[in-house]
């Protein structure tokens, strides 16, 4: 698990080259101008980033979750926001690949895996985040169609995506009454709220997705009626690993910046890196990231093997990695002093971007709930 094969090294090298050349040089500008670089996502699609762990039949790369966490970490060193969107896109692609029938897979996957078409994951609703099973968006069956009504909140890629995987209520039976339905962007009655103004993640759009008598064929449903909650939660296991990896990448970027800065910055007659109080801080940051990385790889390996403890391990890894990434980035900002607070140094952007990773894909409180309930139930 901890020794990479030649192929695994080559995969990481290729992603590092891509992130270094195509993401990192533009991250500050995309943040400042709130620009969602879909043309760069198409480039990413050519590498195989559109369906990292989707099967090869319809254009997926057929890699493992363990490969994916290393890939997302490298992407996030270049730009955590773009890396995180690619993670969300991959959740959607995996849901269609894993639960779609032959016709759905053939229709959607070829353009999604190349990232010529983008995907959005629609679970959260206004006033309903952590208690996802209580969602109220309704899909009423009328003949061979579903009619959707409701609002989804905090949807990444909304307005830019070609397909929305919508978790909607098809029966009043709690989490068992939810179905996953594919809604194409051109469906009449589909609209979007204004771009949310937010602390970070400026390089990807976040909007409400609004359904007003949106008609889609029943054939657009993934899996059986009532399977939606399980499908959504299944996608989140991988999503949690990926977002944890995005936090690690951002944290590693911030740590590397801090080391470089403390080597050159002098105060009280010597470089700051020679002050042991600061050196110890750097050591702690490295330990935090390495511990989180080790857990993340272990959780990814568990998901690859379909291990019994994969779900709590993914939750543990998500919580530890997103906390570690944010705390390291924030510590790097402090070590940079006033310069860390300036946009020019790139640290404050990463702090802002990583903050939301502690909230989404299940808040870190929900991660503790998953782990705690697993303990209590054992």
């Amino acid at each position, binding site marked *: 698990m901890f020794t990479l094969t030649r192929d695994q090294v080559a995969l990481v090298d*290729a992603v590092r080259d891509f992130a270094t050349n195509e993401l990192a040089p533009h991250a500050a500008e995309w943040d400042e101008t709130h620009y969602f670089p879909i043309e760069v996502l198409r480039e990413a699609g050519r590498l195989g980033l559109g369906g990292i762990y989707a099967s090869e039949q319809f254009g997926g790369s057929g890699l493992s979750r363990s490969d994916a966490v290393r890939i997302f970490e490298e992407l996030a060193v270049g730009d955590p926001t773009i890396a995180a969107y690619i993670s969300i896109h991959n959740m959607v692609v995996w849901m269609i690949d894993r639960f779609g029938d032959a016709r759905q897979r053939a229709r959607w996957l070829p353009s999604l895996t190349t990232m010529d078409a983008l995907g959005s994951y629609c679970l959260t609703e206004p006033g309903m985040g952590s208690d996802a099973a209580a969602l109220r968006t309704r899909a009423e069956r009328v003949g061979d169609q579903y009619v959707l009504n409701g609002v989804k909140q905090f949807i990444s890629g909304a307005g830019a995506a070609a397909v929305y995987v919508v978790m909607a209520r098809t029966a009043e039976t709690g989490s068992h009454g939810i179905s996953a339905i594919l809604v194409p962007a051109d469906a009449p009655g589909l609209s979007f709220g204004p771009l949310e103004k937010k602390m970070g993640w400026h390089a990807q759009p976040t909007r409400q997705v609004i359904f007003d008598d949106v008609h889609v064929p029943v054939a657009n449903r993934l899996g059986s009626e009532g399977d939606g909650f399980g499908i959504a939660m299944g996608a989140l296991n991988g999503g949690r690993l990926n977002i944890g990896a995005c936090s690690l990448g951002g944290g590693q970027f911030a740590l590397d910046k801090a080391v470089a800065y403390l080597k050159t910055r002098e105060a009280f007659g010597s470089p700051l890196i020679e002050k042991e109080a600061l050196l110890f801080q750097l050591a702690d940051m490295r330990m935090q990231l390495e511990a989180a990385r080790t857990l993340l790889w272990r959780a990814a390996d568990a998901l690859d093997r379909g291990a019994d403890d994969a779900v709590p391990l993914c939750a543990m890894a998500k919580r530890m990695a997103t906390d570690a990434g944010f705390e390291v980035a924030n510590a790097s900002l402090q070590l940079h002093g006033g310069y860390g607070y300036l946009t020019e140094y790139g640290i404050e952007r990463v702090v802002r971007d990583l903050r939301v990773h502690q909230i989404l894909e299940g808040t870190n409180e929900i991660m503790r709930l998953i782990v705690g309930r697993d303990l209590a139930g054992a």
Partner: protein
Amino acid sequence: MKIAVLVKEVPDTWGDRRLDPSTKRVDRSSDVVVDEVDEKAVEIALQLQAANAGSTVTVVTMGPKRALDSLRKGLAMGADSAIHLVDDGLAGSDAVQTSAALAAALAPRGFDLVIAGNESTDGRTAAVPAMLAERLGVAQLTALRTLHVSGSTVSGERVTDDGYVDVETSLPAVVSVNEQIAEARYPSFKGIMGAKKKPVEVLGLGDLGLAAGDTGAANSWSVVHDVTARPARTGGTIVTDDGTAATQLADYLAAAKLI
């Protein structure tokens, strides 16, 4: 069209590169990568392949066992096959010997077009492509910034100190290209995973029909007498702006023949 692309493993230009004073050779113990211009050569070869149905691209390197990684990079980008010249007796060969070994590998395999980078970032002799063309007895076009093949004609813009010259010749030919030729593609995940399934032909001195006395450092045609470390960086020239800074700067650049 059968295309061969010469690729070379070199020390990463991002790291500290040094000459070993004891061997007077490039220290290859640091991180190594495919020379960037060679990745661009692979790219243009793949573009020519796409434009000429039925073409094949073979990447060729001479280097130690680990140089297989450089061939894998070319295969991951999309090349069909690879040839690896590897033998302890080849280590330390100079440009004359290297061209002999490459010619021995390429001649019997009948390539229509051999593409090389114009010079490596380590040895920087820029001599191997021309020597190889002589040994193969085919035409050569060097220092190209564009490259086209139409029927049996190969053409391009050859960069000179003053600009460029349009040049063309007939296949078979050896061409060398500079860093303007193309932007190398990123290898796709599928390309990376598929690279190890592609054929790599491994050739030693015996396979090449060369004798132990033909190649290697001990039989080199050229001798490095001395190597000196690059002098430490000095303060440089400071231009003080008394209102004429722009003029002073222009004069400085003109004196250095930079403008």
